[in-house]
C-alpha cells in the first residue's frame, strides 16, 4: 500500500487517530480494571491479565477438573477470558498432575509459572460468620477437610470456630462445595477485588 500522501490519505489517517483516541476514552469509561472474576492460578493482576490474555481458551480445554469457563459478553471486556466458579467446580490444583495444566498451555504468559502451590494467589476465601455452622454452635470442619492447606489457610480457634488466614489462603475455592450451609458461608474474593465490590456481588 504505497499510496501517496494525498489529502484523502491524510484525512483517513487523522480520522483513524481521532477514532482511536475517542475509542480509548470510551473503553476507559466502560472498563474499570476492577477484578470481578476468579482467574486461574498464575494470573497476573487483572489489568495485566486482560492485556496479555489472547483469549484462545487453551487453559479452559486443558483444565483437568474442567473448573475454567470462557467469559461471555455478560462479563464485559473480559469476553473470551478464562475464569472459575468454585461453587460449580473449584480448581483442584491439578491433583495427580506434575504441573498446573492451565499455566503450562498458556501461550502468552498471561498465566505465569508458580514455584509451589502456596505461591498461587487467585484471591482469598471470605467467611460469613453469621451462617457458618462452626460459629453457631455446630461442630463442622468440612471446609478444613477440603482445604489444600489445612491449619494454614483455615484455622480453628479454641472454641472450634473457623477463621481464614488471608496470607495462606490461595483462593482455589475447594472449600466452597464442601461447605454444608445453605447458602454457602464461604465466598472467594478474587485477587485485586475491593471488599466493597465483593460485598456488592454477595448482595
Amino acid at each position, binding site marked *: 500500500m504505497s499510496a501517496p500522501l494525498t489529502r484523502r490519505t491524510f484525512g483517513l489517517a487523522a480520522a483513524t487517530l481521532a477514532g482511536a483516541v475517542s475509542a480509548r476514552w470510551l473503553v476507559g469509561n466502560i472498563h474499570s480494571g476492577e477484578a470481578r472474576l476468579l482467574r486461574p492460578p498464575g494470573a497476573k493482576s487483572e489489568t495485566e491479565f486482560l492485556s496479555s490474555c489472547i*483469549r484462545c481458551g*487453551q487453559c479452559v480445554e486443558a483444565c483437568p477438573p474442567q473448573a475454567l469457563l470462557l467469559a461471555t459478553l455478560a462479563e464485559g471486556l473480559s469476553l473470551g477470558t478464562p475464569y472459575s466458579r468454585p461453587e460449580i467446580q473449584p480448581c483442584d490444583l491439578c491433583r495427580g498432575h506434575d504441573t498446573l495444566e492451565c499455566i503450562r498451555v498458556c501461550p*502468552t504468559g498471561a498465566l505465569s509459572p508458580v514455584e509451589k502451590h502456596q505461591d498461587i494467589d487467585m484471591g482469598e476465601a471470605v467467611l460469613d460468620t453469621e451462617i457458618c455452622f462452626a460459629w453457631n454452635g455446630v461442630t463442622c470442619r468440612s471446609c478444613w477437610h477440603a482445604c489444600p492447606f489445612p491449619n494454614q489457610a483455615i484455622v480453628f480457634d479454641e472454641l472450634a470456630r473457623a477463621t481464614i488466614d488471608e496470607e495462606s489462603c490461595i483462593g482455589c475455592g475447594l472449600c466452597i462445595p464442601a461447605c454444608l450451609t445453605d447458602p454457602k458461608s464461604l465466598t472467594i474474593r478474587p485477587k485485586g477485588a475491593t471488599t466493597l465490590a465483593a460485598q456488592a456481588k454477595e448482595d
Partner: protein
Amino acid sequence: MQTRNKGPLRKWTWLHRLTTVLFLLALVLGRQAWFPWFKGSLGATQLVGSIPFADPLAALEVILASHSVAQPLLTGLALVVLLYAFLGRVFCAWLCPLGLLLEVVHSLRDRVQGHFRRRGKRFPDIHLPKEIKYWLLAFFLLLALLTSLPVFTILSPIHILAWLLIFRMGPEIIVLGLILIVDTLSPRGFCRSLCPLGALHSLIGRFSPLRIKISPETRGRLYCHQCTIHCPMGIDLVEDHILPGKPTVQDPECTRCGACVDVCPAGHILKLCFVNPHTPTRAPDPQTSGKSPS
C-alpha cells in the same frame, strides 16, 4: 431458476469449504481431552503435540497491549507469518469459519437479489471502499497500544464464532448479527472492506508465489467475465489482469479460493498454482475481443 453460470463441478470451491469444515471440526474436537491435535481456538492454537500457532493480529495486539512477548507466542506468530507469506491470504477462504458463513450468506443474497431483479425491484447493494480495512487495522493496533487491551481480539466476529462453536453461546452473538446485516447490504462487505485480520493477511501474503496464473491463450477470446462476476473479493480479473496482460493475479485481496478457476468456461485459462515470481509479463490483449489476432 437460471442465475449465474455455475459450471460442472466447482472443485476449488468445495475443496476450500471442506478444508474450513475439517479445520473447525478439529478445533471443536480439540475441546475433548482425547483429541490432542488441535487445542485452543482461533486466537492461538496448539497443533499436534506442541507446535504453537497464533492469529497474527491477536498476537500483535497482545504484544502491543502488554508490552511483552512470550516465547510460545513469538514462535506461533513467526510460524504463521512464514506460512502465509508463502501461501498468501489463504486464511480467509481456506480456514476462516466466518468466511465460510459469509460465503453461504453471499450465495443466498445472490438468489434474493435475482428475485428482486426479476420483479424490477432493487436490492440494497452498498459498495464499501476496500482500503477501509487497512485503516481499521491501523486503528485497532493503535487502540491496543492506547488501551492496553487487545480490542479487536475481544470483539472480532471471527473469534466470537469460534468460541460459539468450540465453547459456549453468549450474548456476544449480536456482533455476528451485525456482520450478517453488513453482508446483506453489501456483498461480502465484511471480508472485502472491513476485516482488519484480512487486511493483515493481505499485507503478509503480498509476495506469495501461490497465485492464480493466467494462460497466455486469452488473446482473441470473447471475455465472458464469469471470473470477475464470481470473485468473492470483487477483483476484476478481466479489466485489471487479463486485458493488461498480467501473467498472474497479483491483487493482495486474492484469497486463493479458486472460484474464478471453477467458473471459467474455457477451463484452462486460469490455474491456481505456485508460480515463479519472475514470470515474464504477457503482452496486453487487444481490447477488441471479437477480432482474431492469429
